[in-house]
């Protein structure tokens, strides 16, 4: 664990030196809420009935969806992006000449990104709480965070597969973009399953985002306990276990292959 923390510390200290970028990124979250608020207010009469089981207000429905989007974007994109950069600079190879194991390395490198996602999500939720007419069940924030963590783990599996592809063929083959698009469209980020075309609606439960957002909204916007959404929690846990197992195996095997093929660094 201390190796993971050491990597997290070095990487975070480096990222924190980008002070202006950090500030602008945080401000952009605040700015982005403005159009969402007005669009959501305009669509409220149309959406009210369709989202009634998950939220009484379309604005907060969208905010929770956006938080989950932040989480999965980081989970699927960070690993291939870091691996690609570190292959080019030779950093990956250097780190692998030390006794560090790859899960500690990847975990350490992801720590800052997810910390940053948590901060942006908090800013988003606080802004929504200030502007929204409905309430947010803040005392369920720990359970909500745990569900977002499970969602992150489920999608980190995709990130590991994309990272494995980078090790193998120098490209993530658009896997992160494809997964992000499908998850956003089918995962109830912007609209419930009920408004999806009948041909694709049955696919929605196959996306880990769908149960995660259902749980998240029940907790935070409907003030329901975890027990009321237990089947979805179990489903999401299954996704998380399967995601890490499959992604981890792919990454491990591709690392072995890269050691044979010499693709740990850019020639």
């Amino acid at each position: 664990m201390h190796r993971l923390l050491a990597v997290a510390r070095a990487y975070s200290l480096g990222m924190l030196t980008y002070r202006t970028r950090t500030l602008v990124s945080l401000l952009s979250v605040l700015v982005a809420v403005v159009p969402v608020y007005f669009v959501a207010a305009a669509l409220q009469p149309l959406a009210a009935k369709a989202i009634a089981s998950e939220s009484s207000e379309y604005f907060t429905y969208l905010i929770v969806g956006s938080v989950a989007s932040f989480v999965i974007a980081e989970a699927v994109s960070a690993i291939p992006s870091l691996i690609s950069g570190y292959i080019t600079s030779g950093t990956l190879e250097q780190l692998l000449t030390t006794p560090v194991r790859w899960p500690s390395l990847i975990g350490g490198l992801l720590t800052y990104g997810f910390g940053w996602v948590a901060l942006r999500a908090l800013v988003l939720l606080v802004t929504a709480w200030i502007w929204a007419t409905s309430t947010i069940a803040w005392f369920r924030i720990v359970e909500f965070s745990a569900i977002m963590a499970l969602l992150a783990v489920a999608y980190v599996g995709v990130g590991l597969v994309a990272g494995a592809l980078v090790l193998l063929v120098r490209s993530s083959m658009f896997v992160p973009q494809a997964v992000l698009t499908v998850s956003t469209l089918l995962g109830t980020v912007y609209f419930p399953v009920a408004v999806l075309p009948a041909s694709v609606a049955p696919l929605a439960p196959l996306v880990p985002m769908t149960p995660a957002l259902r749980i998240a909204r029940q907790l935070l916007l409907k003030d329901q306990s975890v027990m009321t959404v237990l089947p979805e929690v179990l489903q999401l846990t299954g996704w998380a276990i399967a995601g890490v197992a499959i992604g981890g195996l792919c990454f491990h095997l591709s690392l072995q292959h890269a050691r044979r093929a010499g693709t740990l660094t850019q020639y």
Partner: protein
Amino acid sequence: MTTPATDAIVLSGVTKSFRADRGLVRRLRRLPGTEPRAVLDAVDVRVRRGEIFGLVGANGAGKATLLKILSTVLLPDAGQVSVDGIDALADPATVRTRLAVVPADERALFWRVSAKENVRLFASLYGLRGAERDGAVDRALALVGLDHVGQQQVGSFSSGMRQRTLIARALVTQPPILVLDEPTRSLDPVTARELRQFIRDTLCRALGATVVLATHSTEEALQLCDRAALLVRGRIVATDTLQQLCAAVGGARVRVRVNAAHEARARALLHLPTDVMTPAVDDFVTLVATLPDLAQAPVVIEALVRAGVRVAEFAPVPLSLADLLESAAAHRPRDEAQRHA
């Protein structure tokens, strides 16, 4: 594979090929140009404990590949690798605790954090913690003369300082074996000389580390290495002290300045072509000749003087890597023919 206690590293029959990377589709269809290319061919090397061992070769000779195999980030196709008595292929995790690598590329550092944080990270990755780690970091930075700038970002350093940071990072756990990949590649001559002195006096003599150094500079190898292996297109063509290597494959080169009027006579005595003449400067011409051995110099000078040639200068010329490799390549077919015979 049994490793004598005197050997820090033993490579035996190490072979490696790489597939030419021409795109996924071409590789899947096995199109021409994607066949594997041999980079190392049955390489045998023994590095003794406490010595500075050079891997000398041109770009693409296979030096970096050999170092990557030593540092366990690359697996050979065939052969055996022993580092500090440990089988590197069977137990790479233990080998990583005995050997540290100083890469050629300074981009492998975290540029946005301080030198101290860079070294601290590696100390932690090698399992050091708390006060032990902090002490080791301070010692490593002091050893390379960066203790006074340890808090500064690596991105603000000169190339020489970054190179020292890479060395400090490798030294932080005081590993018994250090692998340096072209350590003076991006340094100015003065800094390069200081670094060579540091490698020889501090790393090797004071700390007792075994140093394996890849370089394409014969000057660097001559100044630093106790022994060196000459790598030509993935094959070790000779292993010895560099002076012996130069003598064995290249002979002794000398620069002879003689009166222009006696050039033809001098050329004949020095076994140089006599159908070409060198432009004269102040009535003298400079010729470069190869002697079988530098010990022959007095005999040659005497012969020139006896033949009436006015000799203004007679000095040995250091063999460049290009000369050495050309000579080695020229010797190789003969060596192979002798071996087959």
